């Protein structure tokens, strides 16, 4: 180690903002490279091949043509956007309300905070299986309770017009804890002086929320929107566990369409689908991210 001390020029070559030499990154880079970069680049290549167990053959853009001709793709696209917007919107609204509520002076505050956060910790597949049982049209607890109240419950997961919404609601139940946590952190970080000033001016609770908390929470809101929208657009696990994209194709999203192609052995086609999904998510998220962060700076 003494040799490094004797060679001061090394330190000069280092980026002054960095505390560690570059080769500290190597192990992480090796893992990231082999497990992420290489497969990603390879999948971009395979997207241009007809790839099955018999081997792969370069066919240019044919997979993309085929993918866009997929008859259920349009349904999947619409569902993806609906699902992403619905879950993201509900998480913002409910997360904000819960965040405000759970930072006010209430009984059992930390207990309630844990209760709200708990579903985030449970495995998605576990949640999906549990809710599939709860939402069963005849035997499920939800419809049993509704029956006692004199209401005929719908087929939550079997009614084609309801299935996607039901899954989205479960997604919100599972994910709203994270949004709440981000909002709680944001609210707690607001300096007390603002609230004191508002109190001096005689602000009501609603005015407090509208003119103090909401504007100062903008960074938290943009984080929640971006995280939940990306999650919603790529969502697959919950939908697959609860409906398999059914009944029929009515709750298919892009990710489940791609997965079914992969299962059918159309490996090149599903690679092409993933490239399309990647481009779609980027095309939506990059401008959104820029827009949101610009607004943050302006404030």
């Amino acid at each position, binding site marked *: 180690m003494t040799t490094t001390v004797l060679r001061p020029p090394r330190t000069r070559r280092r980026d002054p903002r960095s505390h560690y030499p570059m080769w500290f990154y190597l192990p992480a880079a090796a893992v990231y490279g082999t497990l992420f970069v290489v497969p990603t680049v390879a999948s971009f290549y395979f997207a241009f091949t007809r790839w099955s167990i018999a081997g792969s053959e370069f066919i240019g853009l044919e997979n993309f043509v085929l993918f866009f001709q997929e008859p259920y793709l349009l349904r999947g696209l619409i569902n993806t956007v609906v699902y992403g917007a619905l879950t993201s919107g509900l998480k913002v609204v409910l997360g904000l309300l819960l965040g405000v509520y759970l930072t006010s002076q209430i009984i059992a505050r930390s207990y309630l905070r844990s209760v709200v956060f708990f579903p985030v910790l449970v495995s998605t597949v576990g949640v999906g299986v549990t809710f599939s049982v709860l939402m069963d049209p005849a035997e499920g607890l939800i419809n049993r309770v509704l029956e006692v109240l004199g209401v005929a419950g719908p087929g939550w997961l079997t009614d084609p017009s309801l299935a996607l919404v039901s899954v989205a609601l479960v997604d919100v139940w599972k994910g709203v804890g994270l949004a709440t946590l981000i909002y709680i952190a944001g609210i707690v970080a607001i300096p007390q002086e603002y609230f004191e000033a508002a109190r001096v001016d005689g602000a009501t609770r609603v005015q407090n929320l509208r003119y103090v908390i909401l504007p100062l929470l903008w960074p938290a809101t943009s984080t929640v929107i971006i995280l939940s929208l990306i999650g919603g657009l790529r969502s697959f696990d919950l939908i697959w566990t609860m409906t*398999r994209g059914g009944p*029929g194709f009515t709750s298919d999203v892009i990710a489940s369409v791609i997965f079914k192609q992969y299962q059918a052995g159309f490996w090149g086609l599903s690679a092409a689908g993933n490239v399309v999904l990647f481009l779609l998510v980027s095309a939506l998220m990059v401008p959104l991210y820029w827009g949101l962060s610009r607004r943050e700076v302006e404030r």
Partner: protein
Amino acid sequence: MFSIHRPPGPARVAGAAAAAAATLALTACGSSGGDDGTLTILVDNTEATVDSVQALADAYTAANPDTEIDLELRPGGSEGDNIVKTRLQTGDMPDLFFYNSGSLLQALAPEQNLVDLSGEPFMDAVAETFQEGVRSDDRVFGVPVGNAVGGGVLYNLPAYEDLGLEVPRTWDEFTANNQAILDAGDAAPVIQTYGPDSTWTSQLFVLADNYNVLAAEPDFAERYTANEAHYADTPAAMAGFEHLQEVNEAGFLNEDFASASYADGLAALASGEGVHYPMLTNAITELRATDPDALDDIGFFALPGEDPDDVGVTTWLPGALYLPQTTDDQAAAEDFLAFAASVEGCDAQTEAVGVTGPYFIDGCTIPEDVPPGVAQLQEYFDAGLTAPALEFLSPVKGPALEQITVEVGSGIRSAEDAAALYDEDVKKQAQQLGLEGW
């Protein structure tokens, strides 16, 4: 996917976990099988397959005490297809494996991955009909395990007796029977099961109608493979979709069809809550395991078509044992295949799991006292009134049929629309296989 699969039921999850553990153990040893007197066979985890192959293995090891045989379980359905393809591709397949015959086998690129058995003397005992289902060019790849399977309607015999109904010979008679059952009000005329793991059961109306399709259009399979005939422009082929739409619109289905599972469907049939269940006859093996007393109440008839004078059943070939080219122990594996293709092999299976139809091995017989459903299937075979399912005549089979038929059976999509959509769906498979004319 291509063929009708049975997905793993809850009881089989333990088996799958055991299989996963076994896989780990094998990987740790760095070999699967090897030249140590142990044969490993990869099988799917359905009751029928595991019990049949286990019976063969037990009988074989009793005669050959030096050999040990291990079964390794895998899930069924599309997930199982993935496992088989991946393990073949990575050279990690055990000495032998069990898999479907027909178009599903063709998707494994058998000429690149499997050992050609056409020169083996034991193949002489395997029926020509079966060899057709495991052939690629002039090479033959598999030895059958289990019996011929019929696709048609399993029905509740006591209900037929109570209402004084006759086995229908045409679709109209079938509809009349359904109406009579509906009017009696005690049971659902037709059972359908579209729960998330059971969507494959929705395909029977279309797939099991192939006898009637071929009766009307004898060259449909060839023209279909050549992209000259399609479901949407062939009325006889479209009929399957239309029948499914009809039973939904007439209100013949069980109330919980949208969420019921295959097991629920069989239970409803056995108890008489439902009277007709369009299904494969190997469901009888499943019933034997879950509710053996019900077997005497279950009958079988072919899916009815238009012509009362030409009533026959659509048949499926059973799956087969295949020998991957990567096996370390080819001689021992071939010796086991020879046993599977012998009369002793059939008898071992009959004793362990019973029979649901005729064998494809020369000299094999089935016992006299079979359940009524099996006896009724046997009558079609004896009379020669059978036709293979389309997947044994054409490699073209789209992956989305079960979702499409669920939509038709649920009233989401019309039959006409569904047939056109399915014609679109099969294009991908045909192009993937590099067929002419697509």
